[in-house]
């Protein structure tokens, strides 16, 4: 046993993912580093295009390979570097040690196979089970995610189920082999609000039961607030802030995070004239400024900000970090 410090389950160091486009190479993820501890729920938040989905995909080596590839960095899963892992070992790991669920439940399942056959395939791929055993196990998992009459539904086709139910099936499939880490990429964005709440609740419950860590990738701060213990904020391919949930929402340190929080419409007592928005636009990844990428939209920006890239600095006491020359307090 180590000296009281729990070793991180996942350790990402300097990950950089590049895409070749007609106009030149583009870095969707540019030198990010973060940790995920066992049993922890971490949210990766940011707007569309900030690189959060690509981050999730690269953990499993699923970045679409003709245009994209990991050009630098390490992804350490309990000390094992996934970036340099040969493909067949990577395949053994997917669904078994790390599972991922995606955004669109409508299209994520194979329409010509029954739900059961897809789940059994996954189970038998990673565990030595007979068809009968795998099927029984699948039915059990379906029950666990709250699907009524699982023994019947297991033989249904995806198009015979609602969106919420399909997403639950995805979750069941993802958890069926007992992974240590679940990556959920916008799992509820395509669902209606009520179903959203149910599915999120399910994920939280199951996480507890299965003792997994969860990385929740989303643009929705509300979802993060409800389910995560820690949040990582990304902007333009970089991590600009990480913090515990409460301190992030109470006192965000990066101006961008502050801007995001301010722009959430809230029920208030006093009326406001306008919804605050962050002025300007996300910079074009082909023409990145030399300094801080948020500088031209930030009202606190100075010349230093425009000339040098701020590094992500961790504060000693709180394990929170921020990449800014003039963080807010």
């Amino acid at each position: 046993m180590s000296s009281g410090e729990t070793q991180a389950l996942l350790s990402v160091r300097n990950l950089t993912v590049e895409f070749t486009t007609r106009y030149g190479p583009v870095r969707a993820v540019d030198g990010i580093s973060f940790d995920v501890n066992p049993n922890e729920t971490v949210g990766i938040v940011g707007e569309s295009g900030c690189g959060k989905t690509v981050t999730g995909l690269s953990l499993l080596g699923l970045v679409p390979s003709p245009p994209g590839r990991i050009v630098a960095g390490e992804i350490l899963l309990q000390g094992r570097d996934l970036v340099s892992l040969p493909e067949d070992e990577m395949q053994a790991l997917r669904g078994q040690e790390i599972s991922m669920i995606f955004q669109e439940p409508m299209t994520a399942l194979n329409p010509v196979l029954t739900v059961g056959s897809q789940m059994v395939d996954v189970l038998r791929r990673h565990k030595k089970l007979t068809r009968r055993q795998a099927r029984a196990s699948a039915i059990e998992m379906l029950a666990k995610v709250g699907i009524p009459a699982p023994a019947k539904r297991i033989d249904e086709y995806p198009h015979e189920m609602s969106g919420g139910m399909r997403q639950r099936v995805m979750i069941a499939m993802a958890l069926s082999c007992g992974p240590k880490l679940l990556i959920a990429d916008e799992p509820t964005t395509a669902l209606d609000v009520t179903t959203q709440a149910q599915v999120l609740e399910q994920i939280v419950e199951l996480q507890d039961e299965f003792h997994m860590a969860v990385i929740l990738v989303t643009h929705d701060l509300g979802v993060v607030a409800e389910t995560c213990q820690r949040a990582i904020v990304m902007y333009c391919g970089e991590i600009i802030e990480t913090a515990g949930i409460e301190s992030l929402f109470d006192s965000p340190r990066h101006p961008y995070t502050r801007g995001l929080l301010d722009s959430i419409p809230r029920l208030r007592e006093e009326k406001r004239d306008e919804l605050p928005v962050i002025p300007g636009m996300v910079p074009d990844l082909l023409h990145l400024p030399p300094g801080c990428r948020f500088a031209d939209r930030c009202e606190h920006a100075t010349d230093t900000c425009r000339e040098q890239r701020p590094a992500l600095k961790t504060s000693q006491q709180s394990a929170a970090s921020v990449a800014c020359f003039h963080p807010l307090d």
Partner: protein
Amino acid sequence: MSAALSDHRESIWGKAFYKFRHDRMGMLGLAVVLLYFIAALGVWLGVWGTGWADVDGPKWAPMSGEYWFGTNIIGEDIFQRSIYSTKTAFEIGLVVAVLSTILGALLGALAGFFSGRWIDAIVLWLMGVLDSIPFYLFVAAVAFALQGNPWAMHVAMVSTFWTTTGRLVRGEVIKLRNFEFVEAARAIGVPQFTIVFRHIIPNTFHILLVQATIVFVAAIKSEVILSFLGLGVQDGVSWGLMISESTLEVLAGFFNNFIAASALLFVLVMAFNMFSDSLQDALDPKKVAAS
């Protein structure tokens, strides 16, 4: 680089043009096609290829300074005939491509716009009937019905080649019909035919352009076989006629006629295919090309 990037247009044509210009295979194809076109133009204007019917050469002369490709079995200059055939090919290709595209656009748009009603049913039925009649039989029948008229082949080709364009346009129009700009036009009282012609059909031009190139190639290739069957070009000469003339010659060991016509045909078709491919690639990124 940033100046060029920041002012390239956002329209489908602007993007397509940019993409196309950088596609080397496509540009090469286009260049070759233009070369052939110039050759055809020259024949049409009487600048060259005029000696295609002169029978004053020796039988089966080999390639020489006087007869660049040699002569065929009755002493005609193969080179002259090959060049003349360029004009024939473009004639057939252009006439059939343009007419069938127009026909396909009109009928397809009509069917799509009035989808579900009797006009649509009739057009679909017509397409089904034409598609299920075997092509060569149809051409033969048309040729006889028109009593050997040299345009019989063109008529037959246009009558059958329009259906694919028609189906594609119909599908696109059905999609477009549901777009809001159509509803908006209707709401301010624009008459239906105007909507179809001024708003909807222009949005199918990218499909029409690609289909026209595909039909051009199909027409040229079909002519070869039709000429072999005796149904094709009646006056003048074409690569198809040259090839069918050569079928006996090759069994006697004389290959010039065959190789000249085949090679020229192949290069034109291949170049056109490459051009067509990059056109498709530029206009619709989901298309076939290897990337």
